[in-house]
């Protein structure tokens, strides 16, 4: 068994177990030690991942895909998880047993990683389940706070439904094609075998199941609640990390179907339009910043689906997908780091005139939002730029036009927050969390701004990446 191929994932499991053991034995004031164990685990996993650079093959008899797409997605997942860990010790300072949180966080990251690498439908189910079960816990972590429990509950109910759909869809595909391995499915579909309306239904159900993790229509409803009610580090994590894994997983499923055989690309395009439009329209009226970011995160999933739409139609689709996912992750984490630093301050009116008392946090939030809109020279611009280029190139001009119109609509709610920060009247003192979150705010803002420097390196690395099965 080529066990070495799973070295990064094993490192994460080991770190999760160790941090759990540490949390069980350590006294209350040392619970944050688990965070250090988790961070070390992430660092080790990153190094082990780099060993896989340039590999493009299936392993474990075709259930596990090692390729550029999964490699970069896992790198992003680990970095994003590391960032969320940075937000946590200050946030959970008053929670006497929060060391366990890091173990759950690591397992949730593992779920996302295995989604990105899944090369078999059954493997996909297992990774989605792992990511979901841990996600519910992360969302409902504040079990004494109604909103947090409500978020976890909604997430769970939506998840139960979506996972049921996923499994039904997969069973349909398995029954029709007689195989669950991506290699064999791709082979069969390339020859035009097994095409039937029922297969389309199966694929659509599978896509809906994965869309749950992505926060896309029709399984998006949990996202704003989680963004509002979950502890802010969890909200940051759940709106970013599972999406990275799900984006690659969904792309892999879509790529199985040749564009000439089935109108799957059109289905994805319709989901993309629905997701971005719904997300942006719902965000327009929010007077709660965390909910607003949650809805914006739904909208961003819609943009992301544009790249999946043109997969196989434009040579740059995968590059754009990875670039957009990375830029979204950076922008959204930067925004949540500000919210965390401000102790989860959430009513929009509490952000009035914040630029006076908290200039750095206000500037960081503006920068993060500009990135989410896609204003240059933030990282979000390059994400959207590559996305638009590939969509137009793939022949979906109308989709790019809809996305542009959506971007204009989204500016309304982002700019309204910016206006409040800078033009509003300040209201009293502003409490902030701690030094670690303050560093996170800086890291986030600088990452948004300075990502323009390595953009060429990143784009060429993404361009060399492949998405199995070819």
């Amino acid at each position, binding site marked *: 068994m080529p066990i070495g191929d799973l070295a990064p994932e094993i490192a994460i499991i080991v770190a999760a177990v160790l941090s759990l053991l540490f949390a069980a034995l350590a006294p209350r004031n040392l619970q944050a030690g688990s965070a250090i164990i988790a961070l070390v685990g992430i660092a080790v996993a990153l190094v082990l991942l780099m060993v896989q650079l340039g590999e493009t093959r299936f392993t474990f008899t075709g259930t596990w895909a090692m390729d550029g797409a999964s490699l970069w997605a896992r790198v992003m997942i680990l970095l994003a998880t590391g960032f969320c860990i940075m937000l946590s010790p200050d946030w959970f300072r008053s929670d006497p047993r929060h060391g366990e949180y890091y173990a759950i966080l690591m397992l949730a990251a593992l779920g996302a990683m295995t989604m990105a690498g899944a090369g078999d439908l059954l493997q996909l189910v297992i990774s989605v389940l792992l990511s979901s079960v841990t996600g519910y816990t992360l969302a409902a972590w504040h079990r004494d706070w109604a909103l947090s429990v409500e978020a976890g509950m909604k997430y769970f109910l939506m998840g139960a439904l979506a996972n049921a759909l996923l499994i039904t869809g997969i069973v349909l595909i398995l029954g029709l094609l007689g195989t669950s391995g991506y290699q064999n499915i791709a082979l069969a579909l390339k020859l035009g075998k097994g095409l039937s309306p029922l297969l389309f239904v199966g694929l659509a159900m599978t896509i809906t199941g994965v869309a749950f993790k992505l926060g896309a229509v029709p399984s998006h409803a949990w996202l704003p609640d989680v963004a509002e009610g979950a502890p802010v580090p969890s909200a940051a994590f759940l709106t970013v990390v599972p999406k990275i894994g799900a984006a690659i997983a969904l792309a892999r499923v879509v790529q199985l179907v040749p564009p000439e055989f089935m109108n799957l690309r059109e289905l994805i395009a319709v989901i993309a339009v629905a997701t971005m439009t719904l997300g942006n329209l719902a965000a327009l009226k929010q007077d709660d910043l965390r909910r607003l970011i949650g809805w914006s995160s739904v909208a961003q999933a819609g943009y992301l689906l544009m790249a999946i739409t043109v997969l196989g139609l434009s040579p740059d689709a995968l590059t754009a997908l990875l670039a957009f996912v990375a830029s979204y992750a950076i922008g959204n984490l930067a925004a949540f780091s500000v919210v965390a630093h401000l102790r989860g301050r959430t009513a929009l009116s509490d952000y009035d005139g914040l630029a006076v008392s908290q200039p750095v946090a206000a500037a960081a939030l503006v920068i993060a939002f*500009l990135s989410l809109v896609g*204003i*240059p020279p933030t990282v979000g*611009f390059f994400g959207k730029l590559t996305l*638009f280029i590939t969509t*137009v190139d793939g022949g979906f001009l109308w989709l*790019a036009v809809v996305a542009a*119109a959506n971007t204009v609509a989204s500016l309304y709610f982002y700019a309204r927050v910016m206006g409040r920060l800078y033009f509003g009247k300040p209201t009293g003192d502003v409490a902030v969390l701690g030094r670690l979150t303050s560093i996170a705010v800086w890291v986030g803002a600088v990452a948004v701004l300075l990502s323009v420097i390595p953009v060429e390196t990143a784009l060429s690395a993404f361009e060399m990446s492949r998405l199995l099965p070819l």
Partner: protein
Amino acid sequence: MLTLAILIPLVGALVLAVMPKITQDTARVIAVGTSAVSFLLLLIVWAQFDTSAGAPAFQSLAEIEWIPSLGVAWRVGVDGMSLALSLMSGVLFIACTAWPMESSERPRAYYAWFLFLEAVSLGLFLVLDLLIFYVFFDLSLVGMFFLIGRWGHGDSQRAALKFFIFTLAGSLAILLAIIGLVLSVDPVTFDMRTMIDLQPLAGMDLRGGLILLGFIVGFAIKAPLFPVHTWLPPAHVMAPGPASAILAGVLLKMGTYGLVRIPFQMMRETFADYALPLAIIALASILWGAVVALAQTDMKRRIAYTSINHMGYTVMGIAAAGALLNGSEGAREMAMTGAVVEMIAHGLITGALFLIAGGFWTRSKTYELDAFGGLANVAPRMTVAAVIAAFASLGLPGLAGFVAEVQIFVGTFAVFPWIAAIGLLGILITAALFLRLLQQVFFGDLPKAREGFPDVSLREGTVLAALLALVILIGVYPRWLLDLIGSASSAMIGG
């Protein structure tokens, strides 16, 4: 050299943003000084600029690789048009930073945003890369959004938001059009010179038309042209005077400059096909701007609407210049030169007018024309400045506006005679509205409340004198400017 001219204001902005505890005066000195250095660099570029017939179209070139996989690089260079526009912007930024602030709130940030906008505006005119052009185009929105929202008055947040959303819609249309344009060459490149040489869309009807539509929508919003001008009046009225001056003087030019540089130069065939509709839109802007301006009782709104009218002349000239691929070179060249001179003249004149209007707000907190009268008695210097600026704006011979408009109309008559003829009505109406404005504000009876109305201060006076001296110089002796701009228009049309 050009790169430095862009970077210096940006560095100045950063310095102002991080330097704690400096007084308003120090901040202003830093801002004016930085703008002056950057302007000096542009003057050196001008001195080296070769306007002779065989000279290359773009000069003072520099190129640094940035994203080779997308064909994006930091490319700067100037032709006669962009050099003239950046020089005008340089003058205007010095003038607007030297002009006193309307309220003394947060001076550091105020001047930092001005310098940021200067870097962005110069960058837009000087770069020769489509992507970086777009970057600067978008950044100009961010800068102006904060300037209007933070230092404006009245319902300025709403105006700023409206401005931001409208113009972002335009800039996204441009982005899609740029993508369409770029994807039609292989390998992909964002180099403007390559695009001008290749004319990649020649012979593609539908695709070319769609891409042109994207550009025209985007640049028409920025210029602005009827019917997408509605963001402009509130933005101007709520903005502080100097910000209005920059908005009208520099930011609006981005629309017309982009129209010439990108669709006009890079897709001549398609542009020629659609020149007539564009000229009709321009005509509508000329008339609509003039008529609505006449109806305004708010002085700043009135000036704002005349901007729409003037940008209409510019676009009419551009449309006439691009209407044919061959024939009437002389007239089309004249229309193009006139259009660019109009951009310069409008920048200086309307800049001065908005600064004067800003002066009215600082003194009396109102823009209502009825609130004033007989100011010539108490503020003679301001009266002289306003009279010169208003006459220049309505196109009196001997002033800059005339030089521009006469060329535009003569050129357009050769191509679209009836549009030019109807357009002349615009000049009549503008004359009427400015004369009535002058009459109402400066002559007649002085209201009681205005008896202590202070005349322009030394600083204000110097700024206005400098701007208006340029207006008169261009009006009396335009050779130096026409040589510079003419070199660009003959390269565009004759070449």
